[in-house]
């Protein structure tokens, strides 16, 4: 059994987020002008982590290499397209949905039915 106890984060998550945002802005404000622009640009980047199947990641990397663009740019492009199509009713998720066994989501998507690259 792991004997090192984990410190619980008891601060209201919204308050923690506000504090971290304000501290980030103060850190940037204290930088010399030459570094402020880059720091602001970096801070405004919205990074997310997603679970991707390895073969999909590989296919994205290969397309990005061929087109000489970044994987991030390519994924963002595809996602915009996908979201617009979904909002236009062109994407049907129901055939891929199956009931989830975890409490957080009602369904999971069964991607085995998707056509693979």
């Amino acid at each position: 059994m792991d004997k090192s106890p984990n410190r619980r984060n008891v601060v209201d998550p919204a308050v923690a987020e506000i504090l971290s945002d304000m501290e980030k802005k103060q850190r940037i404000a204290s930088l010399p002008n030459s570094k402020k622009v880059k720091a602001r640009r970096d801070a405004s980047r919205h990074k997310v982590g997603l679970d991707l199947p390895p073969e999909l990641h590989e296919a994205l990397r290969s397309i990005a290499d061929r087109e000489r663009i970044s994987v991030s740019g390519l994924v963002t492009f595809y996602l915009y397209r996908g979201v617009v199509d979904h909002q236009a009713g062109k994407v049907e998720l129901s055939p891929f949905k199956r009931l989830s066994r975890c409490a957080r989501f009602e369904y999971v998507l069964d991607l085995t039915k998707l056509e693979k690259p």
Partner: protein
Amino acid sequence: MTILTIANQKGGVGKTTTAVTLAHGLAMTGQKTLLVDLDPQGHVAFALGVDKAPGLYRLIAEEEPISNVIVNVRENLDIVPGDKKTEKAKRTVVVSHFPTEIIGRLFKNTGYDAIIFDMAPSLDVLHVSALMASDWVLVPTKLDAMAIDGVNEVLRSMGEVAERGHHLGYSILPTFFDRTTRETVVQLKALVQTFNGHVWPPIPQDTKAREAPAFGMSLWEYCPRSPAVIGYDGGYENGYTSIMRRVMEVVCGQIA
């Protein structure tokens, strides 16, 4: 029934604005709510567009039934108004047999889902009596050293109340939040380090919140899209809308 007290010994920290906003917010969600003005300034009535009146004085000193002194100000929202005579009511409380129990006795079994006490910026017998009757205390504070000292004073009073066997839940609400000043960050950080999860998301400084009482309107009526209500657009929760969610948890018993 849940009784919430809005208290800070320091004046001008947003107690009445918070009390009026939360009381009207609860009323709008269908909770039958009573807002009691324990401050001789009588600003609860003023902020909701009705006249100040010696409601609390009549209730305590003249022993009138509560139904005689409540004023219905909005759907589901009644108030017990106050005015300078509230000061005299305090004297009645002081000479009564059980001064610390008087508020609890007056407001129990009134049939409300929630009662909110808007306290005066002082520590007197009415204050202790209201704390004794309460389930939860919300302490609004500006993010400056003097206002935060007021928080400590309220918590000391709560400690005295706890010694009498009544344990209260509490939260601290940073108000007049100005995200551009260094002092705000320093004080918010200090507050969070000391009180951890008791600190709720802040209410942004907002001119509209100062204007609303002049029109006798709550913030939900006067400026529902203002920063004080919906918060800064920073992608994080703040403003009275986020506070309402937390208050609902208190009132519905999920926290208490």
